């Protein structure tokens, strides 16, 4: 790792968040003292590992107002989304339902879109709803889609590119009214906005540890118990996690996730205030350096740390990033970072291709310092100016 002083300014907290030092500390004994398999409950070391896993499960459950036994650990939100969507559809089909419709949004994470595409190959009927130019789903669009008998609705709580927060409780109520299961991908929402599965009426919720200052390689799926949501597992084996997710539990990662969830629940409000302050500071500095940029997505209903910014002057955002090597930002989802295609999320908001190509995703997080946002704004302004001048000279 480079020295803090020489480190790039990290404003890419939607791609992944740096682990909290308290998370690292909580994980440490599970790298060092006890390596046992938490399923080896016949011996003392295994039981101790099992207790640590269960304590972590309690913290994750508490973050979303769930019962511990409603939390299934997975390798991350991508797996959780696959398990929720394919698992619910396949189980229902196995029970003989004639419902085939799976409704989701055009702006969902790639893994949700690919999961429903996989289901299409199995005879299900995916419906991709458009969003409004502000990124929000018009509830009437969902109501309309639900007029046809539907199996599952999946809407992400916070968009990974625009940071827009959907009105999940209202959308879930519509689904429930139609007798339809409701899943939300809360990878970007957990720890950033309050979530309560009971109050919001959620059936399935996907979570990721590394988006809330925990380790990569661990996530969870909330599976409602009353009334019980039934899923077919993606794969089977030793029968861990009540048969929903076989495979040896990664104790250090689970413990890290638990600690990250515990901290998030306690400090979410504090984080939000500080992050909003850094965002405003960044925005003010950037307004001075890059006059005329536009922030995409609804300005009120969004997470504090997100800015999705279309740069003026006909520049290519990737060229601006390349000219600002001391700043870590992105042009969209990390998964498609290397892609030359402009963001499909922004295209779904109605941005023309040229504007989508001129757009940067900024993600400010718990550990972003004022100095970092100042440095980032200055370097991005300089980079934008350089790219713009070069274009003008051509």
């Amino acid at each position: 790792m480079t020295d803090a002083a020489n480190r790039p300014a990290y404003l890419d907290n939607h791609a992944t968040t740096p682990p909290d030092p308290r998370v690292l500390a909580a994980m440490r004994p599970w790298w060092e003292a006890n390596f046992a398999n938490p399923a080896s409950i016949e011996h003392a070391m295994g039981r101790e590992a099992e207790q640590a896993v269960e304590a972590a499960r309690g913290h994750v459950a508490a973050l979303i107002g769930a019962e511990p036994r409603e939390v299934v650990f997975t390798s991350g939100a991508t797996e959780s989304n696959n398990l929720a969507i394919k698992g619910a559809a396949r189980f229902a089909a196995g029970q003989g339902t004639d419902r085939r419709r799976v409704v989701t949004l055009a702006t969902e994470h790639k893994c949700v879109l690919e999961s429903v595409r996989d289901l299409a190959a199995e005879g299900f009927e995916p419906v991709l709803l458009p969003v409004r130019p502000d990124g929000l789903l018009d509830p009437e669009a969902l109501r309309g889609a639900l007029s046809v008998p539907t199996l599952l609705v999946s809407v992400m709580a916070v968009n990974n590119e625009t940071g827009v927060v959907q009105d999940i409780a209202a959308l879930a109520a519509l689904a429930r009214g139609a007798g339809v299961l409701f899943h939300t991908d809360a990878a970007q929402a957990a720890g950033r906005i309050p979530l309560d599965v009971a109050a919001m009426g959620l059936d399935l919720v996907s979570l990721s540890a590394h988006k809330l200052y925990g380790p990569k390689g661990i996530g969870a799926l909330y599976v409602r118990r009353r009334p019980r949501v039934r899923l077919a597992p993606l794969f089977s084996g030793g029968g861990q996690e009540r048969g929903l997710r076989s495979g040896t539990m990664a104790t250090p990662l689970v413990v890290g996730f638990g600690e990250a969830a515990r901290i998030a629940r306690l400090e979410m409000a504090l984080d939000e205030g500080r992050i909003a302050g850094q965002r405003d500071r960044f925005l003010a500095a950037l307004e001075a350096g890059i006059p005329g940029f536009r922030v995409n997505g609804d300005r009120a209903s969004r997470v504090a740390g997100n800015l999705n910014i279309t740069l003026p002057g006909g520049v290519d955002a990737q060229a601006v990033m390349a000219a600002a090597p001391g700043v870590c930002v992105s042009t969209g989802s990390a998964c498609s970072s290397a892609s030359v295609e402009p963001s499909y999320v922004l295209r779904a908001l109605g941005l023309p291709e040229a504007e989508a190509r001129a757009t940067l995703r900024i993600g400010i997080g718990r550990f972003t310092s004022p100095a970092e946002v100042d440095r980032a704004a200055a370097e991005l302004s300089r980079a934008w100016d350089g790219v713009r001048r070069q274009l003008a000279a051509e």
Partner: protein
Amino acid sequence: MTLYLDANATEPLRPEAREAAIAAMELLGNPSSVHAEGRAARRVLEEARARVAARFGGAARDVVFTSGGTEANALAIASLRRGRRVLVGATEHPAVLRAAEGAEVLPVLPDGTLDLPALEHALSAGDPALVCLMVANNETGVLHPLEEASALCARHGAWLHLDAVQAAGRISLSFGGSGARSMAVSGHKLGGPKGAGALLLAPGQDLAPLIAGGGQERGRRGGTEALPAIAGLGAAAAAADPAAAARLAPLRDAIEAALGLEAAGSGAPRLPNTTCLRLPGAAAETQVIALDLEGVRVSAGAACSSGKVARSPVLEAMGLGEGAGEAIRVSLPWNAPADTAERFVAAHRAVRARLRPKG
């Protein structure tokens, strides 16, 4: 002091793996991000991939990281079984048996090794097959006659998938030379962290993902990679030298010789670290709990089914009958102390004296 002899459930973390995992925890980038922090994470990921490929004799581009051995087996079998009938050994791990549901089961001989004439008969009977075999058994350590099985598969146009979860790092193993289409390994059974495994694929072998997503792992496995666990897997693969594991065999043999008990599969080639000891008249669970009180950690079968008191299906397939409920698995870890045999034998004798029926 605790004597940990449950390595087949999970190996103690190797110091190299711990160091690599903790160092990777400090990296803040997502390996898919193109900026400096993302590229640093990507380098760690690709180094781990190269180390896994080097240890097991495959090409780095054909190594797919998964969450572990269960997922690696499930991923391979779900994809490779398309359009093929499936044949599976009777003593396979539940992860393979479940992924191969509906498969024809191949019997094993009383020593636990695959019944080769039965394989040949099954292969010649019908359409192209996918044959799923474990390199080494998790309960007995018995090694299947892979060269012969692979040659039979080749002769009949069958594909071979290997579950090398227990064999990896303990015996020398060349995926490239095995003739198999795919091979699953698990990080934590190599002395790496839990939460990462790998699937090795033969050159050009297509794979349909189980977990669809952001295009990671060349579209074969979606999701942000579990960087700390994967970095640890790479380091463990580099450190897990089968020549070092061979030193466990004399310790294991000394236990068997001193106790004079029947060891399942002891007539067959086995892993150097495993023995499956039967104490007639004593339930396996009782033995395990009694040994635990003596500070010795062993198990009554696969860890994933721990807590469920049942006779071992592996031992039943070997024809042990009643004895299948009376055998414990003793599996020595990579760092087993030199006095392992003396300490285990003493604990076992104490337990045996206590369990002996009174009167």
